[in-house]
């Protein structure tokens, strides 16, 4: 039901004039390059870390708790002394901490999809994969932050990487590269599953067992044979071993090669799949 006279709307005339003026002034600039579009989406990811830090805190606190718990409760029993155990476990927990973050890349993408904002992105004259690549670039920064937090906590507790800062940085870099590859699986899940929660559940249901059935927490030689065999081929074990090696200055090139190959393989398979699903809408 409309009430006349309709002109009893105070701001109306000024609204119209201001809007007319605001839209009159623009010329359409040339199309942006794929890289620039992706970087802009990376910037968006950074803003989210700033505005919604809870997510980063959530996924970082769990690994920090693990460091404390394992070091002080189990450390003595598993490796003889807490300091020694810390040297063993910290690179592994670094891996775990960063890998947990990758699940959130899928969660974030699914959240975007359930809101209308992806429709806007998809209607823009930009490289169609830019939102995906950009978000993952932004997420990589999140991965680095969560990895640094664990390293700092470790240093405070007495962790001393023999290869010093360069070794720790190389290990973190390797973990982030692997995570970039792994996160394509979760973005694919993010596009297939119905809700952000479903993505989170499915993601952690995969990543939890894989992390615990790796050499992150225990030396596999103490395990029964069949389990040891699985743990040894688990890419997360290989990544943890490679990270330990880099931090202690005795990196195994073969391990590093496998990690990079797995990351590349995941990207080659899942990046196009994600992109296809995303473009199809």
């Amino acid at each position: 039901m409309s009430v006349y006279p309709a002109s009893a709307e105070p701001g109306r005339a000024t609204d119209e004039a201001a809007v007319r003026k605001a839209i009159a002034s623009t010329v359409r600039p040339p199309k942006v390059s794929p890289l620039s579009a992706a970087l802009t989406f990376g910037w968006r990811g950074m803003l989210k870390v700033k505005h919604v830090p809870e997510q980063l805190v959530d996924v970082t606190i769990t690994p920090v708790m693990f460091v404390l718990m394992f070091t002080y409760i189990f450390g003595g029993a598993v490796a003889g002394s807490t300091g020694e155990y810390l040297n063993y476990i910290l690179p592994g927990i670094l891996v775990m901490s960063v890998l947990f973050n990758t699940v959130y890349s899928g969660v974030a993408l699914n959240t975007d999809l359930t809101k209308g904002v992806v429709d806007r992105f998809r209607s823009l004259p930009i490289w169609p994969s830019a939102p995906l690549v950009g978000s993952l670039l932004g997420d990589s920064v999140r991965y680095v932050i969560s990895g640094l937090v664990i390293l700092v906590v470790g240093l405070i507790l007495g962790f001393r990487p023999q290869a010093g800062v360069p070794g720790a940085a190389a290990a973190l870099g390797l973990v982030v590269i692997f995570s970039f590859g792994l996160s394509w699986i979760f973005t694919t899940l993010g596009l297939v599953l119905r809700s952000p929660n479903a993505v989170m559940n499915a993601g952690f249901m995969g990543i939890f067992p894989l992390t615990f059935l790796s050499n992150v927490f225990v030396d596999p030689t103490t395990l029964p044979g069949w389990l040891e065999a699985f743990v040894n081929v688990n890419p997360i074990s290989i990544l943890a071993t490679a990270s330990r090696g880099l931090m202690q200055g005795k990196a195994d090139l073969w391990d590093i090669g496998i990690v990079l190959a797995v990351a590349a393989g995941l990207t080659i398979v899942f990046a196009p799949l994600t992109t296809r699903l995303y473009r199809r809408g």
Partner: protein
Amino acid sequence: MTPDASLAIEAAGLFKSFGDTKAVDGVDLAVRRGTVYGVLGPNGAGKTTMIRMLATLIRQDAGTARVLGHDILAKADAVRAGISLTGQFASVDEDLTGRENLILIGRLLGLKRKEVKDRAAELLEAFGLSEAGGRLVKTYSGGMRRRLDIAASVVVTPQLMFLDEPTTGLDPRSRNQVWGIIRGLVSGGTTILLCTQYLEEADQLADRVAVIDRGRVIAEGTPAQLKTSVGSGALQVRLLDPDQRTEAAAILVREFGAVSPDTDPAALSATCSDPGRAAAAIAQLAAAGVEITGFSLAQPSLDEVFLALTGHPSAESPDRTASVEENGP
């Protein structure tokens, strides 16, 4: 299909189904540049699906369409370069501030760092969001979100803008603000395809209207033609003094031929859809010394439009009717 340069949208036989649902079932459209074209239909009529095809978000199963002269399948990039989309559910990022949302879109459209800052400030000002610009969008009211959403669509002025139910769920004040914004866009020369559930909105803003139901266009024309074909709304007058009822009734009967029975002794209503004639009748009442406390001119509801055009109510399920009424302006 030979392209017609005066048309912003030219569609023939557009068809899209989801499983057994024919969401858009053979739609033809011709939208002139510089006009507002209304697409009126209830929930589930296929409006959003149609917009999503025309904005190159999904591919049609059959039929063809040209948007701004470009085929939507073959030249999707060229289409995207000239359109902007304000989706049914606010297409802004809730975890960013209003200003950051505008900067994001501006950067993606190729504005330089400095330009984009100024542009964001200018738009926030024009859309009444200057003060809220630094706040996260999730703290915004529905009306503010809508205005930001539309602002994001004009960071670089589009030639054609898709607006999907821009006022659904808004209070009357916010709705009027959004209407003001749309009028501003139109007078600036932007072509608009406006989907709505409200006849009144189409009437206020659109130059032509297509009524769609279950994926098909069931009527097309100017809002005036549409209303004439549908019959009319009602003028309701509330009297200060119920004792003047007889006198007032006589005047309304003279003007409109009849008054409808009303249970409220202080209220009178008559069939009328023309604001001009309503105003004349009000003037007559005043001249005769009948004091009124208020009056309103109600347009036919979407349900009445549908009943008149199709012989069946707009809704297939009872709860759909309910939601249409709940959201009514």
